[in-house]
């Protein structure tokens, strides 16, 4: 299998702006081309659009707006992990030889229809994500003796880190008390425990080993991919305090990259809600079950940005189709030592964890210099 690397990237700020999906897509793609004017658009074989927006034919539309005539053009939708699933598809096109260079652009509006999975009638009238997040929170807290105050540290840490990210939705820092006193959504969830839907876009350009060196001296390679879907419905989760799909996807990605979790220097993980971050860290194997909050508290106290340096979904906002791509861009910048005040200590190997619908599906990528 031939190597696949990341040649270029572009992004927009994440906002609450009311913009057309086509405009948002165009903006991050334009940012990519403006930062990399030497890219020959004729060499782009495929254009993939990652979004939950209901607009049709977005990949050919984006191709036309940006002056690309690709062989392959289509959209990819998988709720919140559409972005990394698009990267996996692009990787497959290149590694199979069907394409040499693939543009992936993810975008979402603040009012995305992907926020609620209408099909999942097993949830009854409780289809909004705050309800599964509340059940996860209650179960996790009880199983491991974790308090609401401890979970609030996830939000405090990720808002603090997002303040160093000029593209993040959140511009404020919060204390544990402020998280605890934010609007009560349920007995087990406060408003500041939640990521927020927003408008935003992120684009990356993947290329084969043969082509990538024409465009960058410091390519980042995708060396590990793991995916697992256990179900579509939340109530099919066998555990409510750990994430089975994340365990399997994480191990697959690490096996493919020939790494152990201890060799991951920096990671972006899908903190849709505060409780998700410790559950993910445990399910990926960063810590033993029940010890995720100890790791998070230690990172926060030492101002170590190893986990969610861009501020995670809680700090950055969550434009569903763009999130996995934005997470990937953060890890690229970290590995290229371009992350400014968010920079971690000379990382060599990074990981992205992106999931959908209460962890019924997870995608994990490993990136290396």
């Amino acid at each position, binding site marked *: 299998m031939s190597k696949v690397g990341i040649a270029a990237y572009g992004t927009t700020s994440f906002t609450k702006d009311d913009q057309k999906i086509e405009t948002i897509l165009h903006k991050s793609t334009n940012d990519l081309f403006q930062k990399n004017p030497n890219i020959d658009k004729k060499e782009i074989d495929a254009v993939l659009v990652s979004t939950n927006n209901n607009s049709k034919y977005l990949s050919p539309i984006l191709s036309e707006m940006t002056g690309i005539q690709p062989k392959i053009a289509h959209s990819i939708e998988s709720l919140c992990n559409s972005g990394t699933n698009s990267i996996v598809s692009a990787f497959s096109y290149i590694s199979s030889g069907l394409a040499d260079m693939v543009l992936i652009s993810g975008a979402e509006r603040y009012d995305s229809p992907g926020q609620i999975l209408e099909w999942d009638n097993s949830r009854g*009238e409780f289809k909004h994500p705050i309800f599964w997040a509340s059940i996860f929170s209650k179960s996790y807290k009880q199983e491991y003796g974790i308090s609401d105050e401890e979970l609030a540290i996830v939000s405090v840490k990720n808002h603090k880190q997002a303040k160093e990210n000029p593209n993040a939705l959140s511009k404020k820092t919060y204390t544990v008390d402020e998280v605890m006193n934010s609007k009560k959504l349920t007995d087990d969830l406060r408003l500041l425990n939640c990521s927020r839907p927003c408008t935003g876009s992120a684009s990356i350009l993947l290329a084969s080993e043969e082509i990538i060196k024409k465009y960058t001296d410091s390519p980042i390679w995708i060396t590990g991919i793991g995916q697992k879907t256990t179900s579509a419905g*939340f109530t099919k989760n066998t555990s409510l305090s750990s994430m089975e799909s994340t365990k399997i996807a994480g191990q697959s990605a690490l096996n493919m990259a020939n790494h152990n979790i201890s060799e991951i220097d920096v990671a972006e993980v899908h903190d849709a809600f505060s409780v998700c971050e410790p559950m993910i860290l445990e399910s990926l194997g960063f810590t033993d079950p029940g010890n995720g909050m100890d790791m998070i508290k230690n990172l926060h106290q030492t101002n170590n940005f190893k986990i969610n340096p861009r501020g995670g979904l809680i700090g950055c906002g969550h434009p569903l189709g763009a999130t996995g791509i934005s997470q990937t861009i953060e890890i690229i910048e970290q590995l290229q030592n371009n992350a400014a005040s968010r920079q971690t200590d000379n990382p060599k190997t990074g990981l992205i964890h992106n999931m959908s619908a209460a962890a019924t599906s997870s995608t994990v990528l490993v990136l290396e210099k």
Partner: protein
Amino acid sequence: MSFEKELEQGRFYIPECLECKKLVWPPSEFCDNCNEVTSLKKEEFEGKIIEFSRQNEEYFCVVEFGDSIRIMAKMMTLPKKDQIVKISKCGISEGSYFFQVI
């Protein structure tokens, strides 16, 4: 599939495979195990509270029926984990199912 017709009438019947007898959830005309046709098992099912939380004055619970079928249901009194419950109200409202247990 008559599951939704029964649900609209306030009756919660779970589909069962006519061939392998597996209870099939989410409700489907076909078995996810052997692909054969299902039929509604017309009996009153008892469920068990797996987890719950509360929004305002209403509790919402994960309730398990049999050993694999789980739904989210409303409960008006304080639930207990492992409490045995029955569907007291169910139906379809604006395209979404709703369930209440006692």
